[in-house]
Structures are given as structure tokens and as C-alpha cells.
């Protein structure tokens, strides 16, 4: 119901190849020509647009990497990230800011302040939702519960059963967010804790198959709740050598999910990957490395009937600043 018709698909793919050709052509393009291209696109596509900004595996990197000659020096940092987020917020009507887990652990901020500044800053940046990574349990369930006081955004996960733990009422399987005329469902899936999270840190949490649970929740969001778009925040990891469940496998075996924003494997993708789901519909899968070095951006255009159209390409925004 919510899928682009083949006609639209065709238009899009020819437009994409045109853009590619244009990009390959000389850089001395006339401004007027570009304006024509866009006037054309403006006409073909709709007036409803959703912009998704996302991070994953920020790992307590509140400050940029120090200027010490290492690979990522000067990159990342929440102050620089805030600047970009703010400029995008000013530019677009409908924006979502999402995180795919492992907010905690990696700098002394976490060793000494236990996650408070990480959560507080994400609230100040106005994150709309996040999911849990394995390292978000590094101070145990109680450690996480304490920090949730500082989170003004929902944390979603649908495949951990928290019943009987202190997290039971604090984490929901999904959240629904309205942006303009759009209704967006957001669910979360987490990695199998066994062999990864020490038992004492996640005692009482039961891990369920993320595919089965996500299919249930996404069906509910898409078909019962009539969400226009469904995003899954995943901390499963992008891909593995063996058949361990990853975003690539998860994307193929689920339905009613339009976009998967992943984490865990710290995979730097230059642009989102398109994977066909079990109904042969394309799902956008993305992951933006770690440490807040990149901020992902994906635009989705919807037509007047609310059918979503496509996605403007790529979209890694590099967060950069210099600080000694």
C-alpha cells in the first residue's frame, strides 16, 4: 500500500542515473541548468519530505578526538554535531534524530560520571529516539536505570524481555512520532547478550529472536497503527562472516520496515545500502561508523498520497572541528 508504483520507480531510477551522469560531467555546470533539474524534480515529487539524521556507537565521545596526530584527531564532538543538527532543523520541516545504541563507554566521561552527561547531552540535542547497545549495560541494569532519568527521549527495544527487571517500565518496544502529516513508527532490536554482556550486568533480561519480534511490531505499526514509515534502530551489527544475525540478514527476513539504522560493528558506510526484504521491497540500511565522527542524513520524499518516493542519496555529514 505504501510502496512506490513502478512508474515512480522508473522515474526515480532515470533521475538518479541522470544525476550521476551530471555528477560525472564537468564541474563547470551552469547554475541555470541545475535549477532546471531541480525545478523538474520539484514538480515530479511531492511536497512532503522527511529528513532522518542518525548516529550510532557514539561511545561517550562528547569531545572531539584530541589533536595528537591520531587518525580521527579533531573529528566528532557534540558541540560540532549540535551545529549541524541545528542547521538541518532550520532547513527542513520534518526531521528525526535517532541513535542506534552504545551511547556509553569509551572515554573518562563514562568512567567518572556513569552516563549522565551522555544522556543529558542527547536530550539537549533533542534526540527523538534511541535503542540499546551492549555497552549501555556496562554499569548493569541499575546503572542504566539511574541514567534514564536524564533521557528526555524514548529508548526502544522489542526483542529483550525486561519483565521483572527495573527496566520493565522504562523501555518500550516502539514509539510513534508525528511529523507534519507523517506518522513514523520507530522500533528497536538488540544483539544477543550471551557471550557479549556479562550475565550479572543483564540479569533477568530474556533475549528473543529479533526477526520474529520485529515482524510482529512492524506489522502492528504499519498495518494497525497506519504509520507512513517504519524505522528500525538496530544494534545487531551490519554483517558477519558467519550466519550470525546482522542487519543484512535482518533486512532480508523482515517486512513492513522501511529503514534500518544500525550499529555495533562500527561500520563506516559511505552511503546507505538497499536490501530487498522478504516481500522484495527495498529497505534502506545504514550505519555511520562510531564516535560521532559522522552524522548520517537520509531524506525521504512522500507524494501527496503519502506514498514515499525515494531517498536522496548519500549522506554522510562529517563533523569536524579543531580543538587543541
Amino acid at each position, binding site marked *: 500500500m505504501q510502496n512506490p508504483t513502478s512508474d515512480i520507480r522508473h522515474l526515480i531510477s532515470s533521475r538518479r542515473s541522470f544525476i550521476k551522469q551530471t555528477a560525472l560531467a564537468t564541474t563547470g555546470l551552469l547554475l541555470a541548468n*541545475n535549477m532546471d533539474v531541480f525545478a523538474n524534480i*520539484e514538480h515530479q515529487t511531492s511536497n512532503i519530505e522527511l529528513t532522518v539524521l542518525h548516529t550510532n556507537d557514539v561511545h561517550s565521545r562528547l569531545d572531539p578526538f584530541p589533536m595528537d596526530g591520531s587518525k580521527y584527531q579533531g573529528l566528532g564532538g557534540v*558541540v560540532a554535531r549540535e551545529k549541524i543538527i541545528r542547521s538541518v532543523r532550520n532547513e527542513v520541516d520534518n526531521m528525526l534524530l535517532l541513535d542506534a545504541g552504545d551511547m556509553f563507554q569509551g572515554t573518562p566521561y563514562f568512567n567518572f560520571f556513569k552516563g549522565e552527561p551522555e544522556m543529558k*547531552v542527547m536530550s539537549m*540535542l533533542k534526540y527523538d529516539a534511541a535503542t540499546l547497545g551492549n555497552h549501555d549495560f556496562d554499569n548493569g541494569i541499575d546503572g542504566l536505570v539511574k541514567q534514564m532519568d536524564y533521557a528526555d527521549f524514548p529508548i526502544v527495544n522489542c526483542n529483550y524481555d525486561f519483565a521483572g527487571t527495573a527496566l520493565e517500565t522504562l523501555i518500550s518496544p516502539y514509539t510513534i512520532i508525528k511529523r507534519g502529516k507523517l506518522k513514523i513508527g520507530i522500533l528497536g532490536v538488540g544483539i544477543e547478550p550471551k*557471550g557479549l554482556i556479562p550475565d550479572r550486568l543483564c540479569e533477568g533480561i530474556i533475549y528473543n529472536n529479533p526477526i520474529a519480534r520485529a515482524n510482529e511490531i512492524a506489522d502492528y505499526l504499519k498495518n494497525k497503527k497506519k504509520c507512513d514509515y517504519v524505522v528500525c534502530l538496530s544494534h545487531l551489527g551490519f554483517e558477519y562472516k558467519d550466519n550470525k544475525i546482522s542487519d543484512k540478514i535482518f533486512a532480508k527476513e523482515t517486512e513492513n520496515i522501511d529503514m534500518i539504522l544500525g550499529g555495533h560493528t562500527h561500520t563506516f558506510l559511505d552511503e546507505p545500502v538497499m536490501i530487498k526484504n522478504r516481500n522484495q521491497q527495498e529497505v534502506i540500511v545504514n550505519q555511520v561508523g562510531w564516535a560521532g565522527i559522522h552524522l548520517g542524513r537520509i531524506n525521504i520524499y512522500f507524494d501527496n498520497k503519502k506514498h514515499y518516493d525515494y531517498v536522496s*542519496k*548519500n549522506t554522510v555529514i562529517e563533523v569536524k572541528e579543531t580543538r587543541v
Partner: protein
Amino acid sequence: MKIFNRFLLFSLFLITSCKTQYVATSNDKQLYKVTSNNQTDTLSDIERYLKPFRDSLNMTMNEVIGEAMGDFIKEKPSGSLGNLVVDAMLADDGSQMTDGRKVSGAITNPGGLRINQIPKGKITKGKIFELLPFENELVIVEVKGTVLKQWMELIKDNGGWPTTGELISPSKILRNYNLDSTYYIATNDYVANGGDNCSFLIPCKKHPTGKTIRELVIAFIKKSKIIIPNKTASFPQIGE
């Protein structure tokens, strides 16, 4: 306006296609302006909130504990950064048990090293916190030769872990240990308790040392003052 925005995005796409879309470079001045007196935009809220946390961390974390004579790199099967850690694990208390029994080697999981590099130059305490953020304790596990073999197979399948010791190798399964003998191996409590798919270590007897790997590495660097990257780990010769 919308068209103009699209044009801007498109232009950025043209310039940076396939790489990154745009590079936002805020410079020192802007940043320092925020932390000084003129705090008029929302930007300053986050900076103002973080500053006290950062200042209090900097008091201890900026301490220089030693100097790296070259870049220490995390690599598989064996790299200078991993070797630094395993060498430090055996440098002091790790090499010998309290009752004098000999420790055969040290193994740590590559996932426990959270940065890929310590660059040449002065090393701060904060850098070691970035490298080893976990409160992982050094423990000595008692393993039968059969379990050690299993461990070596896992390490080999993973493409190598930081290891040191005469009986263990970051990438090979050595044959010169006895499957029926008991060996004492220094590792971190996360691995010893079955982390990183080491469930075969769960039933093994463990001797905790009460020291975190991080404090051992900090102590090792402080004592050495100068450290030199080494692609092969140097196993301390016990009793010599």
C-alpha cells in the same frame, strides 16, 4: 527557497559525491567564543553544561605518564598496541601467582582495546582510559591443555588476539604443550567469565588479582618512561 536549498545540497553532492556530503568546519575561535563570555546562541548550552565535567576530568586525565617513541597500532594477528597491553599484564604481578607458580602467558581480547592507535609522543593517562575504558580486572585462569587448545583455535579463527607467552601465539596453534597439563594464563575477567565466546573458560578456576588491566598498563608506562612499539610481544623470562 526550497529549490535553493536543494540546489545547495545538490552542489555539495556534486563536490563530494561518493565521499562525504559536507564538511562542517567550525574553528577554534567559534568554539572558544562559546566557552567564554558571549553566550547568546543555543550552542553554548551544551558547552556550558559539559565544561565542568570536562574540567574536572582534565585535572587527572591530562597527566603525562610516559612517551611513545613511535606509533602503537592495533593490528591482527599481532600489533604493537596489543603487545603493549599483554606485556604490561605480565610485567608485574601478572607473571607469577602469589604462591610462586609460574604464569605461562597473557591473552586479551582485541575487542577490549577501544582505540586503534596511540600516536608517537607524550602519553596521557586519559589516552589509556580511551584504550582500556572497561574496569576489567586481571585474573589468572587455570586451564588444562585441552582448554588452552580450544582457546587457541578461537583466537586463530578470529584472525589473532594480543598474546604473549612461550606456549601461545596470536595466530598459530602451537603443539608444544601437553593436553593433560594445567597452565596458568593471565587474562581479563570479561574473557575469563566467558566473554567474547570464551564459554569454555567459565568452569575454569580463577585467581583474581584485584588490579585492573588499565592500572597495570598505566603503571607499566610510568615505570618504563619511554616505550617502543614492537610488533612481536616480548615475553618476560621468568626467574631470570
